[in-house]
């Protein structure tokens, strides 16, 4: 395992360079630190503390340079070959030698105490400052833990930043083609251990030939393994840049979410600020409410910037927060392999704990969601309960959909839960019982026996089985009460 270093070409703080890695899957954080760039810190190695946050630069459709915050402790360096990377050490250089406004605001307002988390906060705020929305709110630093300040001095710095004039970063060179580079720098990182195919067919062919290989998308889950051991036991096929997976559009009444679309992109589209040519989804606020709500609770910005729906489906964790939403929305998965493509209902996809219908040579290409309800009115919402309100793993997640006819009679019902079984799961007996009922908040009492009988959740360090059982019932009651208040 020794002496198999690989040099990854990367533009670091405006300078073309190489980062030497002990393996293609050595994380960016470890490669940076090993090269003496110690400003980027390891606080957890799990993508949960944000001390390792760095920014990736890209050109938006107007040619403006935008920044995206990511956790460097999760990303394999080779996945970033050719990328434009900014670390905390580079901000002064990018700002002509002066402290960037993000840095000076934190200094002025006492936003650092021990300073160890500070580079992460600087980079998250830097990315927000140079995002299209310049949205500098709690959400952009929710993925950054600080143990010293209590955050209030950081908030004071954020208020100053919000009021500061917009600054533009130096323009990035236009990419040579609209396709992701299939030659040049990228090929440096295309090693047998980590392949970076340029298109879907190439990727599927590779997987067909090496079925033991693992798909690698945003690396927000697999990255935990790279963080602990740079050498990964299985070859990887990186699909984060495949154009065929990176589209978000509506055809007819059908929303198609590419498996490689980052959750942040989905959020931007839902907020009416689509990027990368994505469809504007703000017109579907009610129909897609369950997605919007769940994305709010889903991890933190740095993770959402990399995580994908395909990844959530690929890992198939029972606590993957978007999975109950897909169940409730009757999502349909488009699975593709060299053998062709097939459609599968989300409800049929999960077989057991982290086991799915996906064959060894298949890939989830996209997910389709029908935007038309079954009645004249749709009531729907998502819920997530954790020990901590923000950025926590679910104790229970739930997603409910009720379609009503003009008489408020329930014509379609979906009650889907995560965190209560080995797979994300629907309460089908309760759903059946609800059909034909006139909507009323007391329906919870009626389906209570079915909900009690349907699930047998576990006790773990997040919560007891008893608490989970209560949440299964109470969350549906809460939903009914909230919807009742709207009717």
């Amino acid at each position: 395992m020794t002496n198999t270093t690989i040099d990854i070409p990367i533009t670091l703080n405006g300078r073309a360079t190489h980062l030497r890695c002990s393996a293609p899957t050595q994380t960016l954080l470890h490669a940076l630190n090993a090269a003496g760039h110690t400003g980027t810190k390891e606080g957890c190695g799990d993508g949960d503390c944000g001390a390792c946050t760095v920014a990736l630069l890209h050109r938006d459709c107007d040619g403006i340079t935008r920044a995206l915050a990511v956790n460097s402790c999760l990303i394999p360096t080779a996945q970033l070959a050719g990328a434009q990377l900014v670390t905390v050490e580079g901000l002064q250089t990018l700002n002509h030698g002066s402290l960037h406004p993000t840095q000076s605001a934190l200094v002025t307002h006492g936003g650092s105490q021990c300073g160890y988390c500070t580079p992460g906060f600087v980079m998250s705020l830097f990315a927000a400052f140079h995002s299209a929305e310049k949205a500098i709110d709690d959400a952009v630093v929710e993925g950054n833990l600080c143990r010293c300040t209590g955050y209030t001095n950081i908030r004071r710095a954020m208020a100053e930043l919000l009021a500061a004039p917009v600054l533009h970063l130096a323009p990035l060179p236009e990419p040579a083609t609209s396709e992701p580079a299939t030659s040049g720098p990228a090929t440096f990182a295309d090693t047998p251990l980590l392949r970076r195919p340029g298109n879907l067919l190439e990727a599927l062919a590779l997987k067909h030939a090496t079925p033991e290989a693992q798909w690698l998308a945003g690396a927000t889950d697999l990255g935990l393994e790279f963080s602990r051991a740079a050498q990964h036991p299985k070859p990887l096929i990186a699909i984060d840049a495949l154009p065929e997976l990176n589209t978000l559009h509506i055809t007819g009444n059908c929303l198609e979410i590419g498996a490689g679309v980052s959750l942040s992109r989905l959020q931007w589209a839902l907020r009416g600020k689509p990027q990368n040519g994505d469809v504007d989804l703000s017109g579907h606020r009610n129909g897609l409410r369950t997605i919007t709500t769940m994305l709010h609770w889903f991890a933190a910005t740095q993770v959402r910037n990399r995580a994908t729906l395909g990844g959530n489906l690929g890992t198939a964790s029972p606590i993957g927060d978007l999975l109950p939403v897909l169940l409730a929305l009757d999502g349909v998965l488009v699975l593709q392999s060299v053998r062709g493509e097939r459609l599968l209902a989300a409800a049929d996809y999960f077989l057991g704990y982290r086991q799915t219908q996906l064959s060894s040579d298949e890939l989830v290409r996209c997910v389709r969601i029908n935007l038309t309800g079954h009645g004249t009115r749709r009531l729907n919402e998502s819920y997530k309960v954790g020990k901590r309100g923000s950025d926590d793993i679910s104790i229970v997640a739930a997603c409910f959909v009720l379609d009503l006819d003009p008489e408020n009679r329930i014509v379609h019902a979906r009650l889907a839960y995560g965190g209560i079984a080995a797979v994300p799961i629907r309460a089908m007996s309760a759903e059946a019982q609800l059909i034909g009922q006139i909507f009323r908040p007391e329906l919870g009492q009626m389906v209570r026996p079915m909900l009690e009988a349907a699930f047998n959740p576990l006790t773990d360090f997040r919560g007891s089985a008893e608490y989970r059982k209560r949440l299964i019932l109470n969350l549906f009651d809460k939903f009914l009460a909230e919807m009742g208040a709207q009717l």
Partner: protein
Amino acid sequence: MSTAQIAPAIPHESAIGHVTGGARYTDELHMPAGVLSMMPVLSNCAHARIVWLDVSAARLADGVLDVITAADIPGENDTGAIAHDEPLLPTDTVEFYGQAVAWVVAQTEAQASAAAKLVRFELAPLTPILSFAEAKTAQAYHMAPKLMLRGDIEIDTALAQSEYRISDTFSSGAQDHFYLETHASWAYVDSESIVRVHASTQHPSETQHIVARVLALRSYDVIVSVVRMGGGFGGKETQANAFAALVALAAVRTGKPVRIKLKREHDMTLTGKRHPFQTDYHVGFDGTGRIQALRAVMVCDAGWSLDLSPPVLTRAMAHIDNAYFLPNVHLTGLMARTNKVSNTAFRGFGGPQGMLVIEEIISAIARTLDLAPERVRAHNFYGGADGSEANREETHYRQPVRDAGVNGISGALRMQRIWAKALTQGNFAARKLAVAAFNQQNTTRKRGLAITPVKFGISFNKVQYNQAGAHVLIYSDASVHVNHGGTEMGQGLHSKMLSVAARTLGISARHIKIMVTSTEKVPNTSATAASAGSDLNGQAVKNACQAILGRIYTLLRAHWGLTEAAIFRAQNDQIVSDCGRAMPFKDAVALTYDQRVSLAATGFYATPGLSWDMANNTGQPFYYFSCGAAVAEVEVDGYTGEWRLRAAHLVHDVGASLNPLIDIGQIEGGFVQGMGWLTMEELVWDANGRLRTIAPSTYKIPTISEVPEHEFSTTLLDNAEQPGVIYGSKAAGEPPLMLAISVREALRAAIAAYAKNTSNAPIKLACPSTPEAILTAIDTLRA
């Protein structure tokens, strides 16, 4: 926001380094080439006899230079801070799940990790003690019980004579420090055979002593330096010693520099936490809610070794009064010896655990008598609600609470002033009406409001620790090095020491550098702990600066031909005399050099007037009390037990602040850290004694979203100069953590609003009060 009142705000001395990534931490210092890395081999049993341990395969692994076990220790195999009961590496038994049985030394961390998996061992399980109940059954306690007593009558008589009585058991949970920088140490042996250790430690002197102990060296053979820590919170007071000893031992054995930087899961598995406490109490009180007698048995979970548990327990017992006068007290303190990590110092050092008990009791009293909790609190204050009851001003360990007077305010009971200010700042009366109105209108969401006080004793309980040294060097170009014994962990000590030196020497801070803390500059230092860092080191720095200035003044007196009566001052980069003569500081320094007078001095300080009778647990252990109060309002979801802090208004007394920006940061940071401990930070051990929450994915400390955006204010008590403390300031490190008890009490108030019956039984709320605990409490009331 009260920060607006204060100008100018002086940022942390390393702030620019923090935001540019230029500020380096222990593991990022320039190390000699060829540094080796160490990784631990962890036991998989909480309590077991080691049958055999075989490191031979690991020794042969790629890149491995050494595998260290107990047999390799040349000196004493012990890192205990108080008792010698803490083997660095186990010889016969493992005492907690995850204890390191060996450490692998390899060229890279990855190689050390891989080789650690090749170390084989057999453990023969012994019965572990994993709970208070198991400790009680086995009578597994460290040391004899401690007693702290007061009262003219026998406690059971006092209880019997009380109009009302409540008996209950209350437990509080552990807390991981979760400093963002995990433990780090590296060492090498220099060309003069000095073992040089760089460690992320709050207590470099003790680290030095323990490295010497383990290596069979003397203190003069070991130098320990601390550049800065990425957080400490007590978690690096003793816990750094073992890692420093390991790298030093490996450096001596291999002849190469060796480092340890713990992975988060190793840090959480290997290091001690805040002590969980379980307290059985019997309280007697009258119909007005006044406490008349308290008998309690306080048991802390000390873990497998003693560490700092005795003083933690003492402080818990000495803070069970919080701000309240307790006429008859009978406290018994015990330290359970369990098969868990050895619990240790954590911001407040037992004080918060003690104070929680009395706040639990006050809430129970208020509920029993159907009185407003804030009134019962004030009614029980030292000196009474209005401060007029002079016969209620002495703590149960016999220390007067009233402080010395200053600025025309006669010796004051500060709590009454603080309380009034907090009620105003928090708009308490109006808020209470609004909360009641909201709760009338809503059945599935309820709000709760509370105000709680903090009174916290400042000084180490153990008198001899209350000393500090400094070493100030003025170079002939008038630039200054300040060395002091304290360590910087984010609390802003170096910034404060910089201001003290600048203010004393009358020069701009840009002429002064605070040096890396090192045992070769200031010996025999105490831990930077007990909130006393700036009090102790500040006086020592001032003292050293004054010694040099005294020599300069003597020279100038002769130089200017002035009489003995002439008075000098150092200000605005000048030395001025009262007769109108002035000389730039720079020139005065040059003159002093030319006249062959020393421009370096040591400074020393020992806190006056302290006493502590270890046998009876009485005396005057604290130089003064740091006080504060907080108003908190929460909203609780009746479906899930989830909650949100709607508002927090904090008032705290930091005397005449040395640095308001830093003190406000300490107060707000302490409050949020306390809120984390009380509400969301839950350490979960499984039935085998294995800690299952060893990462931020499962151990949740507060994020920005848990802190209210608009309704959050921090007010420093005005006109609060503290006599006898460095420039009238007061300690700020630990006390604000306990302001967070207001959040717990607000949650209890919100839970009470769900009650369907008119029972006045006390509302039980587990600690931490996670959403699950809150829903359980609500369901009990709704049943």
